[in-house]
């Protein structure tokens, strides 16, 4: 550690001496909305030196004093430049788009050649406008579904929650919305993500070596940044679709100083279901809907200080009743997320962001039948704080350091049950409190003209503190005993060093080789009793029984841009190892959590995954899109499962192909298509049957040894844009001129699953008939969720 710090500072020092140097720094914003732009390349051609604006649109470039032409480059847009005489440090906020009036789209994310120049291995960025052009399921633009089209990323299954990155589980992805953790990023069993595309500014996925400023997960980081709102003028946009509608209002709090954005979305499946289910039906009253609300405000207190307040609240309400059986189930769940951030510029070389975040995820399940009532609650509440500094000592170094802290409160399961007037003993409601913290330091520096290294260390700590009741299993025939821990009492302390390093080596011809290694601890894991991911899955922290998960990954990639950056291509290989993975023991039941600790029902094992990913993307022109292909293998090994033999993970996929294309036929029409092919998921089915006491029972073979049919699907969409401009007569000059219309609208037609492929959602073994009557039959049945689904959405903006 000490040696590394010495090396870093010596390198910084060596490059800081010499000629007099000056720094140009500031924010890059969009000239029409005033929103900061992430990833603009600020470049001095004569020196061949440049930097990229950070997540807040801030840049800092230190060079020898002198006269320069400074370029502001955005991929797909014209480069803009200014001439400066840099004799001393200069604060220069730049409004992009002012030099060219034909820049029509609001720019939010604009990294040029970042794919080959960045040291981030396995980083994928998606432009939100690009996402919006793709076919949308039921007309609802979905960020998570688009992420799943990238190589190395796959979905659990149609209707499955979350996403899987390089063989990791959905809980191994750090999903951040404006730096606050999102634990459950799905609505309606994963059919829709919680991210409302109208409220989203940028999406960034790191699936390889994550930099040291991120931690707590072993697979990937998905950073979703919300829009800031227009600082110049008020605007409204929205969409009306078949099952949901959304509305966004944005505008200045004070012109050029601050802005707000409010975005709301609601499905009306409940209204449709109410109309479809007659009042006298036993299922009357069954319904489902979700709504979510995004809010963000930002204000520039001074030239050096900006504050941001972000909020998200979303809730799903599912209810099902059958009056014939006096049966009723209600299942609400949802996320509440808040983040308050303060950006402060100490100097042209030192940028600070301080964040205070809150995340609240609650799930509830209530069922009643006749006189039996059952209620289950589960949830997580996090209070977090982060201080992050970015220091730009010179153009060759970017140093980040900071502290990260989260106070977790987990309620894995709180159960109550009553039968008539009898209240059952369901034990003490389990609640686990934890402190998770980390300190990190990383330096991204140019070792030579062509070699850039991002080296970092993260030291993470995790404490499980009381109050807590530990159940100790007494064994068969013996009563359990309990150990009670007092409030604040330290029960378990884990800590460890997490080294991260990645390297980029620029080659001639706009190509580079990148390599990376990362080691991560993960202190919270998701446990699932079912083969399908559900909101009932339980987040569980590390305890003295459940040790923290350890993950390491090594990756190597070759990146090349072709035809003047029109095409981005890459080949990446990776190997990932994971220890202390958790699964429920065989035969565990939800009721087993009662009067027991969830971790007493867990078994522990390891996993590994390796693969190769190919990617080619066309970024400009009438036809844009990408092709991504992944070959991979993912296995798990648990001493207590599958007789200790390794078995494929349920999302082990040998082949995964995505072909995505958008074709702009004219100003009026835009067409897009997405094709997906994936090897079928694995599952465990019974391999034999036997009879006991006249009942036919199943015996299961090797875990996950059966593979479902391959998954493939084609989606198409066509979007018709209304005219953006109208011609008006200038009474003074007598000439007609183009004026932007007050309201712009478009209609998006989309077809999901065009050729009506019956893709497997799950398989089950069905048995029917009476064994003793001789008409008994066993059959394997496949359940398919979605046939061909057309939809239409009207989008508007004024």
């Amino acid at each position: 550690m000490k040696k590394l710090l010495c090396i870093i500072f010596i390198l910084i020092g060596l490059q800081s001496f010499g000629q007099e140097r000056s720094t140009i720094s500031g924010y890059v914003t969009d000239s029409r909305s005033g929103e900061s732009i992430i990833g603009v390349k600020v470049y001095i051609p004569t020196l061949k030196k440049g930097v990229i604006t950070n997540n807040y649109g801030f840049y800092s470039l230190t060079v020898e004093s002198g006269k320069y032409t400074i370029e502001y480059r955005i991929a797909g847009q014209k480069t803009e430049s200014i001439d400066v005489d840099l004799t001393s440090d200069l604060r220069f906020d730049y409004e992009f788009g002012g030099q060219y009036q034909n820049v029509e789209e609001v720019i939010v994310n604009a990294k040029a050649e970042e794919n080959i120049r960045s040291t981030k291995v396995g980083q994928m960025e998606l432009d939100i406008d690009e996402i919006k052009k793709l076919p949308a399921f039921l007309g609802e633009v979905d960020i998570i579904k688009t992420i799943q089209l990238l190589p190395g990323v796959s979905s659990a299954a149609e209707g499955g929650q979350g996403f899987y990155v390089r063989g990791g589980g959905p809980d191994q992805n750090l999903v951040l919305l404006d730096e606050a953790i999102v634990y459950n990023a799905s609505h309606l069993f994963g059919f829709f993500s919680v991210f409302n595309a109208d409220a989203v500014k940028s999406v960034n996925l790191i699936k390889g070596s994550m930099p040291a400023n991120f931690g707590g997960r072993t697979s990937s980081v998905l950073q979703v940044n919300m829009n800031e709102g227009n600082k110049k003028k008020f605007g409204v946009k929205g969409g009306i679709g078949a099952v949901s509608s959304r509305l966004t209002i944005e505008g200045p709090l004070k012109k050029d100083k601050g802005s707000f954005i409010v975005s709301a979305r609601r499905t009306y499946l409940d209204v449709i279901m109410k109309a479809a289910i007659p009042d006298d039906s036993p299922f009357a009253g069954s319904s489902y809907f979700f709504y979510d609300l995004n809010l963000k405000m930002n204000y520039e207190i001074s030239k050096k200080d900006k504050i941001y307040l972000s909020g998200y609240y979303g809730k799903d309400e599912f209810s099902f009743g059958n009056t014939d059986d006096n049966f009723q189930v209600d299942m609400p769940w949802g996320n509440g997320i808040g983040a308050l951030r303060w950006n402060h510029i100490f100097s042209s070389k030192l940028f600070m962001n301080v964040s205070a975040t809150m995340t609240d995820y609650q799930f509830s399940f209530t069922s009643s039948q006749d006189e039996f009532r059952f209620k289950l609650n589960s949830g997580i509440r996090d209070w977090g704080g982060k201080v992050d500094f970015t220091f730009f000592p010179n153009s060759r170094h970017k140093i980040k350091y900071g502290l990260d802290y989260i106070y977790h409160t987990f309620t894995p399961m709180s159960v109550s049950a009553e039968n008539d007037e009898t209240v059952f003993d369901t034990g003490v409601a389990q609640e686990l409190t934890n402190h998770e913290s980390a300190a990190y330091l990383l330096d991204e520096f140019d070792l030579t003209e062509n070699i850039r290294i991002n080296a970092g260390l993260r030291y993470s700590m995790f404490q499980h503190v009381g109050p807590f009741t530990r159940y100790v299993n007494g064994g068969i025939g013996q009563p359990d005993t309990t150990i009670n821990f007092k409030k604040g009492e330290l029960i378990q302390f884990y800590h460890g060093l997490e080294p991260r390093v990645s390297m980029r080596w620029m080659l001639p011809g706009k190509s580079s080789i990148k390599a990376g290694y990362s080691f991560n601890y993960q202190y919270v894991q998701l446990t699932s009793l079912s083969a399908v991911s559900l909101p009932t899955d339980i987040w569980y922290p590390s305890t003295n029984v459940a040790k923290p998960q350890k993950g390491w990954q090594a990756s190597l990639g070759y990146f090349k841009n072709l035809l003047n950056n029109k095409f981005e291509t890459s080949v990446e290989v990776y190997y990932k190892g994971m220890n202390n993975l958790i699964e429920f023991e065989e035969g565990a039941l939800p009721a087993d959590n009662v009067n027991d600790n969830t971790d007493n029902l867990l078994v522990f094992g390891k996993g590994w995954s390796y693969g190769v990913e190919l990617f080619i993307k066309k970024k400009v022109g009438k036809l844009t899109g990408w092709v991504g292909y992944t070959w991979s293998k993912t296995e798990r090994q648990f001493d207590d499962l599958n007789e200790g033999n390794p078995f494929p993970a349920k999302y082990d996929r040998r082949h995964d192909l995505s072909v995505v294309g958008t074709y702009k036929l004219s100003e009026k029409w835009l067409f897009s298509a997405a094709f997906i092919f994936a090897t079928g998921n694995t599952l465990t089915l019974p391999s034999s049957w036997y009879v006991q006491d006249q009942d036919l029972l199943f015996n299961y073979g090797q875990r996950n040894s059966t593979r479902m049919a391959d998954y493939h699907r084609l989606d198409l969409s066509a979007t018709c844009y209304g005219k953006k401009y109208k011609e008006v007569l200038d009474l003074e000059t007598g000439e007609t001129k183009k004026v932007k219309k007050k309201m712009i609208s478009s209609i998006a037609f989309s077809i999901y699953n065009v050729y009506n492929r019956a893709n497997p959602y799950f398989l089950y073994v069905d048995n029917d008939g009476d064994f003793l009557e001789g008409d008994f039959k066993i059959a394997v049945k496949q359940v398919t969720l979605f046939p061909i689904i057309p939809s239409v959405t009207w989008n508007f903006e004024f």
Partner: protein
Amino acid sequence: MKKTIYILSIISLLFSCTKEVEIEIPGYKEQLVIDGSIETGQPPIVLLTKSSDVYSPTDLSTFFNSFVSGAQISVSNGTTTFDLIEICSDNIPPGSEALVSELLGVSIDDLANFHICGYTSFDPSIFGEIGKTYTLSVIFEGQTYTAETKIEQPNPLTNVFWKPDGDLTTHGFSWATLADPPNQFDAYKWEVKRINLDIDGNPMDANFDEPFGPVFDDKFFDGMTFDFFYDNPFGYEDGVLDDYAGLYELGDTIVIKFSKIDENVYEFLEKKYIQLSTAGNPFATPTNIPNNISGDALGIWAGYSPTFDTLICQP
């Protein structure tokens, strides 16, 4: 157009499609299945079969042909070991029809129609006794399988009663009061049959049957005294109208067989009934049913300690 979209959307969300598929399920291996039991005052009975590939036929003749002959089976009560003899339902010793019918759970009339074979002993010295532990030994094809079970101290129901369900006056559930002993593991099994006569003058039900979820342990109510109810497991073919499914009729006379079971037997039966109700359900973990048999065999060696109550269904 809008209506069409609404309808399509709701159909797709509410009604998924199911079809039969042919898919390879690897991992089949033939295993011996031991289905043995012993209860208070009854001889031990052990049925030996073999497991079948999931795609193999499930007709009765396949099942009857799967009975295993030639095994060497013995049961020990801790002091004496008794060898069991092989009997078949279509060839049983005269005079033991009623006992075999009870042991196999097949009506006397059907005994000759079925070819169900088992191993038992008619020596009263090995009939089940409360508090004793019984060890089963099966030697078959050179392999030895052993298992142990205990006939627990019974815990009779404090009270049984019937009450009409909701607004009904003529139909209701069977209710009982249980006083669970504190500070010990207790598990129970509930079985029932109606003994009032049908129009032919025979008891309504020849054998005991189990309602939904017939086993439970005292995890939720250790040491508590409480009332609980069970539904009527008999259906339309047994004379229960669909409108009153799960309920007993005013005037029914039922016998409740309420057995104590040991922890291993409970584990087996709990998982068995869960599998029966959730088999194939993706929301449940695919689980092999644990057993108490050493060696690579399936099944259970179960001791039961029943008590019997007769309930006449009237308010």
